[in-house]
């Protein structure tokens, strides 16, 4: 398709001989919102940082990351070339808004800075006007006064809105969000998520949204990739993946995050064991040491099984349609109506 904004092929990130991200492949089209979910140590943040060219020292990325409108590969591009792309074609919203902002600079100037550096506004006066306009777009009351305030004068949610204003300043083709609402309260989170989605929609920006929260990704994104042990183990449309997961890890993750389902003993559904430290995942299928369905076959690496243009999974023992839910699963209270849980979905 010609609409492709971000094309990632065979992305690998390694430190020394240890692979942290392995063979990641995906495409995001204009206006499309794609989620990347996984637990800590799964490699999701490293994937985002490789796209941004912000990998910490000592980590090396190989493969290819192409962005529409940029005539070079982002992997291996030098800092001069990357700094022309960053803040203009690609922008990022970070998890911690306090560290993403400069505490010694008024926020209006911080927004104007990205406009002036990339020469999208001719002079300071017009950049300032644009900055106030952006602050209004992210819903800060009295944007002109806000432009003259310092980051410490804002609450966490307001700071995250300032970070979003900076990210949106140059109408980026790709907006990368790395756990943008993890540090926020629920009502503030709802507000910021709404602003992020609207900001990206208005600009038809492609979006890569990283989170460990399944519910957030389902709310925000159309498509989702599930990462574990540095690999994408399953991907597909949100509804498909969350109602009919194929990979055993996805199934476990959905089960463990559903706090309304318990077994015969009133206990929550869990995945056994814990996430190994990065680089210490088992060979073959990375999930096999925590998987109840694992067999000897899983000692070799499962191939990617495509189930659609943007969907597939890599598992030798995928969850099948005829899988009967484990016995003794109970639902607490009346859940939201009309929505199958993964267990119910399994019944068809």
């Amino acid at each position, binding site marked *: 398709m010609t609409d492709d904004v971000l094309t990632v092929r065979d992305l690998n990130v390694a430190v020394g001989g240890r692979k942290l991200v392995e063979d990641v492949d995906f495409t995001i089209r204009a206006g499309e919102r794609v989620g990347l979910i996984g*637990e*800590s140590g799964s490699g999701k943040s490293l994937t985002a940082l490789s796209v941004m060219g912000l990998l910490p020292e000592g980590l090396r990325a190989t493969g290819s990351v192409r962005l529409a409108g940029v005539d070079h590969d982002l992997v291996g591009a030098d800092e001069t070339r990357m700094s022309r792309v960053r803040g203009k074609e690609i922008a990022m919203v970070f998890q911690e808004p306090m560290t993403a902002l400069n505490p010694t600079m008024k926020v209006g100037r911080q927004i104007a800075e990205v406009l002036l550096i990339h020469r999208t506004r001719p002079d300071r006066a017009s950049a300032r006007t644009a900055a106030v306009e952006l602050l209004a777009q992210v819903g800060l009351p009295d944007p002109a006064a806000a432009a003259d305030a310092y980051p410490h004068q804002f609450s*966490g949610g307001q700071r995250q809105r300032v970070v979003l204003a900076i990210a949106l300043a140059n109408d980026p083709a790709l907006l990368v969000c790395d756990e943008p609402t993890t540090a926020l*309260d*629920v*009502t*503030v*989170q*709802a*507000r910021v*998520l*709404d602003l*992020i*989605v*609207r900001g990206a929609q208005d600009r038809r920006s492609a979006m890569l949204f990283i989170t*460990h*929260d*399944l*519910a*957030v990704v*389902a*709310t*925000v994104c159309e498509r989702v990739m599930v990462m574990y042990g540095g690999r994408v183990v399953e991907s597909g449309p*949100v*509804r498909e993946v*969350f*109602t009919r997961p194929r990979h055993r890890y996805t199934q*476990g*993750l*959905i089960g*463990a*995050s*559903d*706090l*309304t389902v*318990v077994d015969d003993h*009133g*206990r*929550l*559904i*869990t*995945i056994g064991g*814990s*996430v190994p*430290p990065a680089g210490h995942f088992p060979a073959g299928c990375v999930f096999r040491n925590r998987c109840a369905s694992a067999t000897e076959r899983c000692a070799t690496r499962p191939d990617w099984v495509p189930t659609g243009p943007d969907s597939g999974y890599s598992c030798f023992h995928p969850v099948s349609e005829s899988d009967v839910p484990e016995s003794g699963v109970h639902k*607490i*209270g*009346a*859940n*939201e*109506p*009309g*929505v199958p*849980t993964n267990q119910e979905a399994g019944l068809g």
Partner: protein
Amino acid sequence: MAEQPTSATLAPEPRTGPVDAISVRDVTRDYRRPRTSLRRPSPPVHALRGVSFDIPQGQRFGIVGESGCGKSTLLRILAGLDRPTSGSVAIDGRDITGLPERQLKFVRERLQLVFQDPMSALDPRMRVGDIVAEPLVAQGHPNRTERVAELLEAVGLGADAAQRYPHQFSGGQRQRISIARALAPRPKIIVADEPVSALDVSVRAQVLNLIADLVDELSLTLVFVSHDLSVVRHVCDRVAVMHDGQIVETGPTEQVYEEPRHPYTRRLIAAVPTLGKALSGVSAADLNREYRP
């Protein structure tokens, strides 16, 4: 729930009826802000404004609220780490508000805390065995090694964990260490402040199960603080919703969740994203718009 008040089998003073594990009466707490004017003092911050509730023995009590609502101040006062400006707090029927630190020893034994961030709650230079034994040392208990091994087994870590350091454990395992430490002096009340907020999804369910099991087995009273209503819904029998230093709604968890009465509770529940809501088409804009089904 299964636990009945055990009418304090070995309590020093015999009582007639079951005594509430925690009883909070009309507690307020004001903080002074630094002066910004020479002429007049800064207005005080009212962190808690007339908070009252009772937690019977064996109940699992949830406190829900967003940052700045006063829940941490309330916890500190419950644990005897801070004093209310007015009002009173009683633990097992004994008023702790006026007591000097040396007379709070019984609170330190009866009530233990589990914190949110297991990394900053554990001293990185101490071995796990010493961390878990510390409350026992402080209170002069004998036979510490045996007790530590027993505790580490109880939280599913194995006795050999005692020789290792906190950094050698994952987040979920560290939270298990915090729980073992809290259980060491055989408390009857556990106060957990956002104990699973920092954990990965796959580990969160394990730790919640562990807390539920231990509360059952040891017939503990649990005070569970969280910003996440769905976690509280799973864990607690009763819940109090805090907003702006006050309890705006309290009741059985299921009832508060299904039929919230206070507008703030409704907003809080509406703003929580869930898989179910998302798959039935609720967007971020809907969450923000105080969505009501």
